[in-house]
């Protein structure tokens, strides 16, 4: 049966209306719209530039004032990177295994729960943890064909109340997060430890948030981690694991954060360096 000509014409017309119009007019209009997206005028840029330059100068002055407080055995001056000696300077499993060991109160370092406590406080907006009971800290905990880089659970006393918690750290240095990886981990925690407060940490070189999760993960950069572990490190000086921690932090700063370690203060971001220096306990002045 022959199709009606008017039907075919109508079909052609309807089909044409479905296709996006991408002729030269459209492209040039798109380019025009793109170019008119909000930017800043020359005078705005000059004003912003002046504000940033003046902030930088003040930061550098403060760094120069504080840098003399750094003890000679600080990780900033340490030329040994824990994993570079093995050729594993950016190997994720090496880093997360070492981190699990450092966070484990029962490990041989002698720090007790000091480092785990600092990490928990940092991830919970500085809530003061009065007491801490830790059941387990494990690296590479297998779950349904995958592994949690660091897994810990226990209970923390906050405001006089013991709150059971579960801590999961997923670390990425060079690799991208796997498809649904963080969503699946969060779901596993919910299904298996739903009665505990979940503290989920996504640890990356630049502290980026994952695109594929629903806001349950706390984004942390390795530089943030260094700041957390470095804070009050002086109190751990007499402990067995002190130099291990020094080499670990020096390695993270050098190999993951790309700081010039041993420190070349003129080549490091002064704002980050000042943040680090704020963690250094100043020596008490003698009377």
């Amino acid at each position, binding site marked *: 049966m022959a199709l009606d000509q008017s039907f075919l014409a109508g079909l052609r017309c309807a089909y044409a209306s479905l296709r996006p119009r991408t002729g030269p007019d459209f492209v040039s209009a798109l380019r025009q719209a*793109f170019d008119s*997206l*909000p*930017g*800043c005028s*020359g005078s*705005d*840029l000059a*004003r*912003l*530039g002046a*504000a*940033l*330059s*003046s*902030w*930088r100068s*003040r*930061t550098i002055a403060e760094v120069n004032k504080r840098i003399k407080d750094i003890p000679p055995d600080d990780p900033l001056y340490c030329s040994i990177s824990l994993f570079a000696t093995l050729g594993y300077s*950016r190997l994720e499993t090496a880093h997360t295994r070492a981190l699990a060991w450092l966070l484990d109160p029962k490990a041989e370092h002698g720090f007790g729960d000091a480092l785990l406590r600092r990490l928990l406080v940092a991830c919970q907006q500085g809530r003061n943890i009065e007491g801490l009971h830790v059941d387990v800290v494990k690296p590479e905990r297998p779950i349904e064909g995958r592994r949690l880089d660091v897994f810990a659970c226990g209970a923390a006393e906050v405001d006089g109340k013991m709150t059971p918690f579960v801590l999961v750290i997923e670390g990425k240095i*060079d690799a991208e997060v796997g498809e649904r990886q963080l969503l699946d981990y969060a779901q596993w925690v919910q299904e298996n430890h739903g009665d505990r407060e979940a503290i989920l940490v996504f640890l990356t070189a*630049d*502290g*980026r*948030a994952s*695109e594929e999760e629903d806001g349950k993960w706390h*984004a942390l*950069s390795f530089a943030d981690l260094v700041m957390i572990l470095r804070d009050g490190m002086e109190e751990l000086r007499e402990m067995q694991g002190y130099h291990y921690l020094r080499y670990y932090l020096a390695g993270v700063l050098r190999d993951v954060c*790309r700081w010039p370690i041993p420190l070349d203060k003129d080549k490091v*971001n*002064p*704002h*980050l360096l000042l943040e680090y220096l704020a963690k250094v306990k100043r020596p008490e002045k003698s009377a």
Partner: protein
Amino acid sequence: MNSLGQSLVFYLRHSDEMNRLYWHPRVQDRSPDLTGLEGDQAELVEMLKAVGDAASRESARFLSDWGSRIEQYLGTIARNERVRTKGPPKDWGIRFRIWTRDGASNRFDVGLYVHSALAQAIGWIYCRKGLEAEVETLDALGRGPDAPWRPSSEVNEDQGVVLFARVDLLPKTTSELDHDRDPLVAKAAAPILSWTERQIVALTTLSRRR
């Protein structure tokens, strides 16, 4: 002249500050900490976002120009496919996967990224991990006194990565904000435009060697 973009030049000139006040808050999905910065805070936040967003677009346009140029050339001697990345980093780096034309599955990656702290566009090639792979890649590309190929250690890249271009993106005078994009794209693309099909074959072979 096609401009590199005033916002991108500004960003590169103040990268420590822009990374701290724009980039990190953006990728961490939080507000910038403006402590220590003088001026109207609301206005500063608005300007930082406008400049950062515009710089990201200008960086993406620079990389896309480079991508078009190398894609066109590589299409004559190899199979290539752009590897898409997600999120904010997509504006600051571009990557292609390369195979030989005979349908073999061995491949290697090349890319270009804008390194804000160095204010440079850095071209790289990666066949497989390790220092040994770097040496083999350098050999496959042909060493010479003027060869642009450099090992990863020059910019603290990961082992296995070989650099083929480091192009300064800032204009010579510190007050200038306008910079011609086209010669920068050409400079970053030039090393790839000299590759032969034979070199492509040699490079893809490296990816499977252990």
